[in-house]
């Protein structure tokens, strides 16, 4: 249960970071579909993902491997990735 709540809060925060860093319009953290494909449907690319990854690195003090970017194609996957890293670190 705790994990589920954590992932949800991470999901909201990732959405917030995405919106803020990439200046996304017409969407809020609450309305950002965590399953939407960031590359095909939102149109973000590797530089955008790198920017978001840097902010996530700061916020959660986790190490993000460049090779992992291609797997992080939606907010749900990013959140689960962060959650897993946090669990491994604890």
């Amino acid at each position, binding site marked *: 249960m705790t994990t589920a709540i954590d992932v949800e809060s991470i999901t909201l925060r990732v959405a917030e970071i995405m919106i803020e860093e990439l200046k996304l319009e017409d969407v809020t953290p609450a309305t950002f579909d965590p399953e939407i494909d960031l*590359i095909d449907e939102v149109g973000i*690319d590797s530089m955008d993902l*790198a*920017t978001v990854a840097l902010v996530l*690195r*700061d916020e959660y003090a986790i190490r993000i491997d460049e090779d992992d970017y*291609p797997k992080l194609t939606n907010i749900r996957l990013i959140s689960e990735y962060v959650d897993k890293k946090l669990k491994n670190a604890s």
Partner: protein
Amino acid sequence: MKDNLSNKEWKFSEILADQKIRAKWDKVRKYFFLRESTYDIANRCNIRCEGCYYYEGDKQFAEENRDPAAWRELMRAEKARGITYVVLAGAEPSLVPELCKVCFQEMPLGTIATNGLKFISGSINYKIHISVWGNDATSSKVRDAKNMLPRQIENYQGDPRAVFVYTFTHDNIDQAREVAGILAEHGCKLTFNMFSAPVGYEGQLRHTVSSLNQTRKIMIELLEEYPASVLFSHYNAVAHTHQSGLHDLYSCSYPRMNPSTDIGLGRSFRQYRADLTWNRVAACCVPDTDCADCRHYASGSAIITARLFRHATDPETFKAWLDYVDTYLAIWVMGYEKSDNLCRYVVAPPGQPVF
């Protein structure tokens, strides 16, 4: 020289707390929307240069598609799949101005790579990269073209589109002083490229460790002597004259060396031949280059720029990267003005020795 071996783990926000870094970061990140592809728009050239990448491999035999409607259709299709930036190259785009015009009408951001002997109309508002391979004596020898530099300057002096691209080979290093002096005197912008041997090339232009070191010194000397003319940074000099090529240093992100189709260049980049076909296996900005020897300015512009994450480790490395990206944008994007470099010393590529 600054090292980046400090043990401190920097947060990105700490790096950005420096106002100069923050300002340059905010300036360059506005251009992260650029998505490039390249196009051989003609298979003819009005000169023939030793070591020319175009006349290597199969692409030189592609039949020219000279139909403006076909090019317009291609540009529209490219735009539809997310391409925002075009590079028109091989063999000599100035020989097909009507096709360049169509591309510009459909895709307003781009660059034309030319030898500069035939003027490209100002109505095509792309950056124009004019290739220079040494002084005129050398041009006569390796390009079989006389008075190249005066003719190139006559065509493009005072043209805000123009950037002269001096390609350092093993044999023309010292001549860069003479050429840079002439270009600076005429108010022309200049940047540097490195000869990168085509696959199977056995001529004398290929660099050695000694010529790489000598080139780096002259690049930095000219950058400091002609700061108003030379579009470059110390980190450009390090990255392009390192004993390791760009792929070994940064892992090339072009499809030819990058199997991933998930994101970035591996997903979107295409290199079209003159017949409008493309082949993922061969796709990179300078096809038929020996990847191990690739230090090409065009490939660096994409590969190093894409490596944001690994440069955001400490302020010095990040400043070096920002200088590089700022330089790249000034060379390739109309209307973008280069700022002063943040690093006036050499910084090692991430995880590598400085040279």
